[in-house]
């Protein structure tokens, strides 16, 4: 049970990129800690360890697809 709660807590803390994402790369270009990467052409990969929760990506996203 405790593990389950931890998982939920962790998921709530993680950065979310919704399906509205168009893979334009704007978030990658503004990320100050290189936590984001546009892989292939159909995925934005988040390195949670590097993310400093500054919300630059959230503010820069043209379609509002990111929640930090």
């Amino acid at each position, binding site marked *: 049970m405790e593990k389950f709660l931890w998982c939920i807590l962790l998921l709530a803390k993680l950065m979310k990129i919704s399906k509205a994402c168009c893979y*334009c790369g704007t978030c990658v270009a503004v990320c100050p800690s*290189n936590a984001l990467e546009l892989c292939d*052409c159909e995925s934005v990969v988040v390195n949670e360890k590097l993310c400093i929760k500054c919300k630059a990506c959230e503010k820069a996203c043209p379609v*509002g697809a990111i929640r930090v």
Partner: protein
Amino acid sequence: MRCDFVVVGAGPGGSMAAKTLAEKGAKVLLVEKRPEIGVPVRCAEATGIEGLKALGIKIKEKFIASRTRGAYVYSPDGTLVDISGKEYSGYILERRLFDKYLAIYAAEAGAEVRTRTYAYDLLIKDNAVKGVFLKQFNKRFLVECKAVVGADGIESKIGRRVGLNTRTKLSQMTSNAQFEMVGIDVHEDIMELYFGREVAPGGYAWVFPKGKDIANVGLGIRNANKSALEYLKNFINSKKHLRNGKISGIVVGGVPVQGPVEKTYSNGVVLVGDAARHVDPLTGGGICNAMKCGVIAGEVLIEALEKDNFSEESLAEYEKRWKQAIGSALMRSLRVKEGLEKLNDEQLNQIAKVLSSLKFGSVDLKDITKISEELPPEVIEFLQGLL
């Protein structure tokens, strides 16, 4: 596989670099991560005729959607400043075909083109680039090479991999959204630009005609609390001639407006186009700049190949030459942009009133003195900065 150069990214910058290199006899591989070159479009597609012609490429009717004679610029209160001329001065391109043809020109010159091929890492040995790790479909492989051209867009991975600082501050990144709209009432050969805090804070909105009743309608914003898409919907709803149009395409993306990155070269790597932020900070346009820098990168790398020296010192020549070619224009735009940022909507309206009352070519000294008496000092300072 082994070749002389790998060009990462088949946009205008990358394709021109590959074309230049291949024409001089080098073995070049041009890779593009997307399955099809030019798609999806990330551009408002306007460019200057002069700039494009100066590059000496074959201009085909196929990739020109329309020709423009200038623009109508609207201030926040709707004052019109007419900056159109009689002659055609700009193209609205069909980027999906334009980009493809540039890659075809590169291929015709002898470059090998591979799409759906993603450069996921560089092979770096003894502080020099020795190859690029590529992934095509699910196959991963290494291509050994002597130098790499990073033309991989705003999200440039190549630059970061070799330690070049390509990050754009949030305040210097415009967030853009654009609809291709049909069934709207536009001037076929005039662009429309709209300024103002309500319309597009930190940027502007545009209507670029691509035909009789079809246009790219979009905007770029900075430091705003809503997304660009929201602003665009509001903008279209507020304009009578756009409101009833149908949307036939959506384009989104970021345009960096901070001016070029500090350093655009490293051991065995040069950055071109959006990757080096070769974007005009005032207009957000970068097609011709990217292409010019692509050609320069090609020329410098060929010289480096002849000397067999791809060190940082040798490639510094690239930065020197692109600064000669476009540096002063970029810096001038940056100054104007910074001046423009300081003005509020009211001041923009005042400037628009001054400009709309003047006719280009027939400015009287008396007019200028009369007008300058009415203007606040900030506005005069800005106008002086333009000169």
